């Protein structure tokens, strides 16, 4: 059974057809990419899968469960996590609190427990704290646990966002342009880092990325979309030589 199965996904915003009949399958423990020119509808796909948009038509099955129309936090609780093209951290909470909050869907206590400081509250918070520290340790962020994210350099902010996504122990991680705004040395780091995450956490990764180097070295499969339609899919090698892709996406240049 595939981890994620999308069929016939269509999204219209008023008169704009952002996505047309998009179908896609992703197995457990796969690392695949979604590429396409600017405005092709890549982020729209992610926004629909993570529950942020309600698709006009189509069906999404995640982990054997249809998730169309579920609220984003419900989908997160099923094991999906994502990062954003433009970093979206909670800038006035410490890095540690940012990671802690990623466990929100699995809190295990409610309002009265929090106010009355019950045993259940103390046990749950202990678990959350331990988990958050563990993730920080793994992502080599322990030193900035008490910092506010906005005081960190850009590269570290990206890493915090990644750590926050991983703290929910997702089965599927969506990365929206993880290399955006990184210099070439940082990109090398990122490639190693993503591969390490993929091996270490045994999860599936689906990424949108503009930097060809990243997708070509990391991804096992690629899907290319343009104007909301899939124009090609296959291994990086096949995509590299696909004349349709070269024409639509890269113009006359070669990869």
């Amino acid at each position: 059974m595939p981890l994620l199965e999308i069929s016939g996904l269509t999204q219209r915003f008023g008169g704009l057809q952002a996505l047309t009949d998009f179908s896609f399958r992703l197995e457990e423990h796969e690392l695949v990419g979604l590429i396409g020119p600017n405005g092709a509808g890549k982020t729209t796909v992610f926004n629909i899968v993570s529950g942020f948009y309600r698709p006009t038509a189509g069906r999404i099955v995640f982990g054997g469960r249809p998730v169309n129309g579920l609220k984003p936090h419900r989908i997160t609780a099923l094991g999906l996590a994502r990062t954003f093209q433009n970093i979206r951290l909670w800038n006035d909470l410490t890095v540690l609190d940012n990671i802690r909050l990623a466990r929100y869907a699995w809190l295990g206590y409610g309002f009265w427990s929090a106010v009355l400081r019950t045993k259940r509250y103390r046990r749950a918070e202990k678990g959350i704290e331990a988990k958050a520290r563990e993730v920080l340790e793994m992502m080599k962020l322990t030193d900035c646990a008490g910092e506010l994210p906005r005081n960190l350099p850009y590269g570290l902010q990206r890493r915090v966002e990644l750590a926050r996504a991983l703290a929910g122990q997702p089965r599927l991680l969506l990365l929206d342009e993880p290399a955006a705004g990184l210099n070439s040395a940082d990109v090398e780091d990122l490639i190693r880092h993503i591969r390490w995450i993929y091996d270490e956490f045994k999860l599936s990764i689906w990424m949108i990325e503009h930097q060809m180097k990243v997708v070509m070295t990391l991804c096992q499969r690629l899907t290319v979309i343009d104007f909301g339609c899939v124009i090609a899919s296959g291994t990086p090698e096949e995509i590299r030589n696909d004349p349709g892709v070269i024409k639509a996406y890269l113009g006359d240049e070669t990869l």
Partner: protein
Amino acid sequence: MRRYAINILLCAAALALVGLAQADMLDKYVLTVITFMGINCIFAVSLNLVNGYMGEFSCGHGGFMCVGAYVGSLLSVAFFTDSKLFGAPLFAPELAPFLFPLVLLGASLAAALAGLLVALPSFHTRDDYLAIITIAANYIIISIVENIDAIGGPRGFSGMKKAVNAMSDFADCPWMLIWTLIGVAVCVMTVYRLMTSTYGKGVSAVCQNEVAAEIMGVDTNRVKIMAFMVSSGLGGLAGALYAHVYGYVNAQSFNLLKSTEGLVMVYLGGMGSISGVLMAAVAFTLLVEALRFVIPWLNDGLHALSLLPAGYELSQIWKWVIIPLTLILLMQFRPEGFLGNRELTQVFPRLKRWITLK
């Protein structure tokens, strides 16, 4: 032991206050001012949950205070007094000191439910638009209360003084001061514990980046309902205490002017800072009371210097020029308030050695 120094000091101060009042060593006026200081603390700290931590601009907090004041008064009258409205008391008046917490609880719950009036629209609206809704909620509540003739309508409602007297008959203590001090403690503990738990930090997450919050598993609608209900519920607690201290309520005491007082206290103290808002509530209450004396002095002084035309007297209405003016000056020169969004223990880290907060 040292870690509890400030905790013990605060408890001792509260006990000393009650002791002084008990021994009749406090002027009645001073006692009332201190009690109102406590009520303002509850009012401001509860408003701070929405305006400070959640980053929404609620300007209708007075409305929830109104609900609490009326429901609290009605419960008191029904429980402990012989009234035209409810007939014989439900409980023996001797039980008043023990059952009064039930009155406060009922008032808070009713106000929390009224909070839904703002919480539900907040799912789809934010910022300025939600602020307008809060103003509307304030008006709706006041209009409803004013149009129910059974509870006095625009004439107001009274009778709960008998319940307070019933408590005094049972034991001669400064009951309302005691309940107010307990109320302040409950309110501060609730907000503090909430906002230091991961559960409560969901409120900050919604404030700082709602999209990220929703995507990272925070049920934003539930967080909003919770924050608005807790905030308005504690506002209702302030209202119930207010009604019993005065012994008389009128819907117009909870109009936008009251809500504005709350806003002044929150912005004076610093949004998202409990200690700052507590300081502001105390300072604001003192300022308002001080103006009672300062305005006549000012009047005499200006007449003596013949800066005011003869026949014009500076009245207490000028309070509402001077207080907003302080707000304008504050926004100009220290927009973050006393403490910004930091707590006293963050500004003076050494304090942490003397106080234990859990």
